[in-house]
Structure formats: structure tokens, C-alpha cells
């Protein structure tokens, strides 16, 4: 009996650890119109209110804002375009680092990335990515992916730039 409790507790810990690590840990927002730090302060105020955002780094020359997630949390990137718009500027692109369990369905691959969208479709696969994702999906493994976030046909997708195993 004690042994079964220990196994159940270990499995629960493993599940919780995986769930805690799945998600969007970093978002790089390309913002058009950023021309003065005083004006950009409003965007900072808005983005700091996006759930999951712990800190941000603003690159004025490059027009980029890097959002870093709180430990164990996922950034709700779906709220980022509205926050930037309320700040008086325009999002031209969002890139993200996402981790999660890989799933295969209907010839496509998904990353179970937790909140806010549940899962991200993985697109723009390079040679070798498909085999790696098939392997991960078959054994329930996790992937860490970076790419451009896009919304297509109502689903959020990650146009892959890099793909690796594990969180």
C-alpha cells in the first residue's frame, strides 16, 4: 500500500512538473511606431499587466520588446496585440519560445503548450523536423520550439525557427 502511494505521488509530481514547464516562456514582440522612450512607457504599463509577464526588455532601435515569463507560468500572448494597441502602437510580429508535449493529429503536429490557447500547431517544418516530432509524439515526449506566432483558421500556430527536445 505504501509503495502504491509513493508511485502515485511520484507520477503526480512528474505530471505537475511537466504541466508547470509547458507554456510560453518568452515572447519577442516587434512593435512599429516606437520612436521615443517616454511614449513607450505606456506600452510597458500595458504589457506588464498581461498575465504571465514577469519582466520586459525594450530595444528601441530594433523596435522589439522581449517579454519573459514568471517562473512556472505561461505568457498570455493573445493579449499582447491589444495591450500594444492600447499603448498607442502596432504589433508587426510576435515570436515565442514554447514548450510542451508533442501530439500528432491528422498529419499535423501540435505542441500542448497549456494556457492561453491550449495547443499550438507547428508549421514551417524543416527537413528532419517531421521525424523528430513523430518520435516525440509516439513516446509522449516534450519539445521546446521557437518561431513566429500566427493565427490561422481560428487556431494559433507556431511557424518554426528552431526545434529541440525537452523544456
Amino acid at each position: 500500500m505504501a509503495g502504491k502511494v509513493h508511485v502515485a505521488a511520484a507520477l503526480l509530481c512528474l505530471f505537475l512538473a511537466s504541466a508547470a514547464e509547458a507554456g510560453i516562456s518568452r515572447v519577442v514582440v516587434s512593435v512599429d511606431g516606437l520612436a521615443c522612450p517616454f511614449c513607450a512607457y505606456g506600452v510597458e504599463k500595458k504589457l506588464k499587466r498581461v498575465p504571465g509577464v514577469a519582466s520586459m526588455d525594450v530595444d528601441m532601435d530594433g523596435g522589439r520588446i522581449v517579454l519573459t515569463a514568471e517562473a512556472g507560468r505561461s505568457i498570455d500572448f493573445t493579449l499582447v496585440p491589444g495591450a500594444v494597441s492600447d499603448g498607442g502602437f502596432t504589433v508587426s510580429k510576435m515570436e515565442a519560445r514554447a514548450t510542451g508535449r508533442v501530439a500528432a493529429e491528422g498529419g499535423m503536429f501540435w505542441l500542448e503548450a497549456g494556457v492561453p490557447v491550449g495547443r499550438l500547431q507547428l508549421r514551417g517544418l524543416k527537413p528532419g523536423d517531421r521525424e523528430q516530432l513523430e518520435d516525440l509524439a509516439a513516446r509522449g515526449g516534450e519539445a521546446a520550439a521557437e518561431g513566429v506566432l500566427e493565427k490561422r483558421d481560428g487556431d494559433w500556430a507556431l511557424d518554426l525557427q528552431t526545434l529541440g527536445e525537452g523544456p
Partner: protein
Amino acid sequence: MRGLLVGLISLVMVVFVAPCLAHEPIFGLGPHTIYKGGVGVEAKLEGESASGGGEEESEYVLHAELIYGITADLAATLAVPYVLDRARETDSDRITSDGPGDVSLRAKYRFWRRDALGVQDAAAFIAGIKLPSGDDEETPKLGTGSTDYLLALTAARESLIWYYFFDTRNRINGEDPDGLKKGNTFFADLAVGIRVWEIEYLAPDLVVLAELNWESAARDESGGADVADSGGDMLFLSPSFFLTYRNLAAKGGVQLPLYQDLNGEQPEVDYRFSLALEFHL
């Protein structure tokens, strides 16, 4: 006498027509608003000195302004002036007054915006009203005694290095209780600015500007007749700056007259200045 009083009243008008949010020209207007739900507070000291015809006039006004972002493209501003000192001096006499001036309300709507990497182009309409809250029984008057209106159109390009602003304004004046109607005034402003050092988000940021400010005032009317010693045209060259750090801005400038063609006998402007601190909550 009336010409002198009219000259003093014209100083009051400076209060109504030189509002600004950073980044905007100090003596003109720009299309910049504040972020949605944002609150800005500003304390501004403005002054003017004028002389001519054996008289000297001066005024120093402290403004408190509250700015609110209704949306990212629509901002409202409440401006409350306090006249620290308004003076008229002749060889034989000096009269002064101080106290609350005329309160004004403004709304700015940014109806067009184009964002690109490191550049924002925008245009906005501005409408405002100045209420006769200042004491017009004081000598010199602290308020105009009239309700006046402001309509403006402004456009700008803000980039990582260069700034360009243009605005045109029309101040439409009402009639005071004595039947005096100040001449409506048309303004046109151009400004060019340059960022002094390379921009970094968490560092002080300095932009210096050169402004050209044109004012053309119609003659005042009293009892249906034009007042001879009123109205005229003025052109100013105005070096100005804005220095910001995070959500705090210090800004200021001086208006130096290049050209004045005033009707009749009126003191001419020697200089005007503005110095302000703005803080976004």
C-alpha cells in the same frame, strides 16, 4: 487705455494656446496622445515680456494640467492656470494683479496613424474651450471674461532621430460682459527636432527643436466697432527642448520675435518662455 488693456488681455491668450504633451512642440501642437487609461500631470511656468510706447508689460503664469487617455487615440486635458504676477508699468505707474486665471478643457483625437519600424506618422484634431473663470474685475485682468474656443489640426512624424511637426489653430473668441470681443486669432506652427544622443529605453533622452510660430490676430470689436490698437501679426523663432527619463519629462523653450506688425499703438513682445515638468502615472 483700451489698447493697453487689450494688450494685457493678449497675454492671457498665451495661456490658452500653448498646451502640449511631450513629445510635442513647446509653443505649437502635436498629435501625440497618452496611452489608454493613462493619466498625466503637468506643472508649467510660462512668462511673457512686452514693451513699447512708454509701457512695459509682463506676466508669469503657473499652469496645472491633468491629461487622461480615454483611448489610445483620444485624450482629454484640463488646464488650470494661476497668474503669479501680471504687471503693467509706465513711467509714472505700476499696476499688478495675481490669482486664478481662465480654466480650459481640450480634447485631442488622433484620427490617423501610420506605424513603421522606428517611425510614427500621425494627425489629430483638437477642440477646446476656455471658460471665463478668472477674475476680470482685477486690474490687470486675470481672465478675459469671455468663453473662447479652439479648433486645431496637427500632424507630425516622430522617428528615432528626427522630429517634424506642423499645426494650424484657430482661436474663436467670445464677448466679455463689457461687450468687448477679442479678435479671433489664427496660428500656424512648424517645428523640426533632432535627438541629441542615441536612444536607449532606460536612459535619459534629449530632443532639441527649432520652432517657427506665426500668429495673426484680427482687430478686437467693441460695440460693433473695431478697436484701433488691437490685432496684428507676429512671427517667432523658438528654440526648445524635451528631456525625458522613463515617465518623467522636462521641457521648455523661448519664443524670440522675428517679425511683429501690430495695429496702432501696442507693446511688442520682447520674449516668451515656457518651462514644464510632466509625469505619467
